[in-house]
C-alpha cells in the first residue's frame, strides 16, 4: 500500500509571532520556519506503517513556495521515499491545498493519505476533511490510533467527550492528532541521504487546478493584550481578592 502524507511549512511553534505594522498579515521575514507539528506526526505514522511492512512506499507532498522544499527534505530524512512539491507563491488556503492533493491522489492512487489535523498558522482544521470530500473517500479525523486490518482501517478519534472508534473502507483519509505517536528526530546520515531522494516539482497548472482562495484576508491585528495582574502573598489574600475585588466568588 502506498501512503501519501501532506506536510505544510509554517512558523516554528516556539516563535512568538509579530503582526506587520500595516496590519496586512503576520510578519514572516527572518522568522524560523518548520514543518507543522501535526504533519511531523503524520509523517511518523506513515514511516511506522512502512517499518511494519504495511506501507510499501511513503510519498510526502507540499503545496507552497520554493522554500517549502526544506520541509519535504525533512520528511525525506524522516523516512519518506520521495516527495512532490506543488510550487506556488499564492496564499494557499485549505480548499486549494485539498484540490491539489485530490489531483495527486488520482495520479498516485495511494491506499491511505495522512495529514495533520490542523495547521498551526491558520488553525483551519479543514484540509483532510475537504480532501476526503473531493476524492469521495471516508475520513478519520483527529486520530490518536490507527490500525490497518485487511481492506479496513480502524481509527480511534479524539472527540470532545472522549474517544470514538470508527471503521473505514480503504483507501481513506486520516488526520493526525497530537497523541497518534511521538515523532522521531532526523539523524545526520538520514539528512544527507534525503538530499539524494527524488523530489518532483509541479505547478497547480500542471495539475489543472487553481489554488487561489475566495476567502480574502482583509486585516490582521494583534489580540487584545491581557495585562498581568498582581501577585498575592497567601491563600487568604487570594480568596479575599476573588471575593471583594474580582467578585467572582
Amino acid at each position: 500500500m502506498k501512503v501519501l502524507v501532506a506536510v505544510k511549512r509554517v512558523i516554528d511553534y516556539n516563535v512568538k509571532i509579530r503582526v506587520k505594522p500595516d496590519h496586512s498579515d503576520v510578519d514572516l521575514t527572518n522568522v524560523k520556519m518548520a514543518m507543522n507539528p501535526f504533519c511531523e506526526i503524520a509523517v511518523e505514522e506513515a514511516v511506522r506503517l512502512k517499518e511494519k511492512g504495511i506501507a510499501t512506499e511513503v510519498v510526502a507532498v507540499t503545496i507552497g513556495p520554493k522554500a517549502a522544499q526544506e520541509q519535504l527534505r525533512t520528511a525525506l530524512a524522516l523516512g519518506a521515499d520521495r516527495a512532490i512539491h506543488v510550487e506556488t507563491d499564492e496564499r494557499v488556503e485549505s480548499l486549494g491545498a485539498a484540490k491539489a492533493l485530490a489531483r495527486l491522489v488520482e495520479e498516485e492512487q495511494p491506499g491511505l493519505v495522512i495529514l495533520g489535523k490542523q495547521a498551526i498558522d491558520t488553525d483551519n482544521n479543514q484540509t483532510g476533511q475537504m480532501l476526503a470530500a473531493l476524492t469521495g473517500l471516508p475520513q478519520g479525523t483527529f486520530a490518536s490510533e490507527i490500525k490497518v486490518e485487511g481492506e479496513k482501517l480502524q481509527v480511534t478519534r479524539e472527540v470532545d467527550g472522549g474517544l470514538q472508534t470508527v471503521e473505514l473502507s480503504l483507501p481513506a483519509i486520516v488526520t493526525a492528532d497530537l497523541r497518534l505517536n511521538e515523532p522521531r528526530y532526523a539523524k545526520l546520515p538520514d539528512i544527507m541521504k534525503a538530499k539524494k531522494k527524488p523530489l518532483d516539482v509541479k505547478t497547480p497548472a500542471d495539475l489543472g487546478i487553481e489554488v487561489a482562495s475566495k476567502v480574502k484576508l482583509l486585516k490582521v491585528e494583534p489580540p487584545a493584550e491581557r495585562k498581568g495582574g498582581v501577585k498575592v502573598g497567601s491563600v487568604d489574600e487570594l480568596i479575599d481578592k476573588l471575593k471583594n475585588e474580582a467578585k467572582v466568588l
Partner: protein
Amino acid sequence: MSILVLAEHHDGALAGATAHVVAAAQAIGGDIDILVAGEGVGAIAEAAAKLDGVSRVRVADHAAYAHLLAEPTAALIAELAGDYTHLLACASTTGKNVLPRVAALKDVGQISEIISVESPDTFKRPIYAGNAIATVQSEDALKVITVRATGFDAVGEGGSAAIEAVDFVADNAQSTFVKEELAKSDRPELGAAKVVISGGRGMGSGENFTLLDGIADKLGAAIGASRAAVDAGFVPNDMQVGQTGKIVAPELYIAVGISGAIQHLAGMKDSKVIVAINKDEEAPIFQVADYGLVADLFQALPELEEKL
C-alpha cells in the same frame, strides 16, 4: 439571507453551544433554520424549537445519522445547502469533522472558528493560536462557517419554531461506528462552566488531580488540564484546554502547576479572571494571571479547599 445551523447534541440532549451558534446566526441576520440530525432526536428537536430567533427546525431522524459520522452527515447538509446562503456549526469536534467536508462538496472555502460577525460576509477569527486576529471576507456564494461558542452570548429560549421532517437518507458504505469511550462526569461541561480549575504537569500524577476535586465541588467548577498532563497520562484527552483542545472563557479560570505555554493560553486567555498557582515565580502564566500565587500546589490546594 437564510441560514442553516447544525444542532450540537450529546446523550439525547441539545448542547448549550447551539444557542451560541444561533446568536452568531442572528448577528449575520436573516431567516434561521436549525438542522437536527441523528437517531431518536425528537426531544432534541423540541428543545431546538424553543431557541429564540429560529423559524424552523428540520429533523433528519434516521439510523444513517446515528453518531453523526462525517460521510452521511455531510451528504445530508450538502443536500439541503441549496436553500441557504450560510451554513453554521459549532467549532466542536463534530462541527470541525463535518463542515469542511460539506464546504468541499459545494466547492467553497470554510471560515473556521469565527469570534465575531462584522457583516454577512466578513468575520473575525483567531489565527496562530490566538496570537493574531484575522478579519476575513468570503466571496463564495455559500458561506460555510464554524463558530467559537465563547465568542457569542447564547440566545434565550422563548421561541416556538415549526418542526419539519427531512426525508433524505444518505447512503454510506464507507464508514461504520465501532465504539465510543466517553468520560462520565457530574461536573459541568468544560465549555459551559462558570469556573474552571485546570491542572498541569506540576500536579505530578493522576491521583494528585483529586486535590482539585474538593475545590471544584465547592466552586461548581469543571476540571481541565494542560496537554502535558494529558500526555503524561494523568487525565483523559477530553480535559485538554488549549489551541488543540477545548476553548474556555469562564468567569474564573484557575491554572495550577501550568507554565503558560502559548498553546495553553490560546484556550483560556479570554477568561474573565485568571488565577495562577505555580511555584516558579518566573512562569509565563503569571503574565496573564490577574492574581498569581507563588506557592507549592501541594500546600496551597488543601488550604484553598479548606478556606473556601
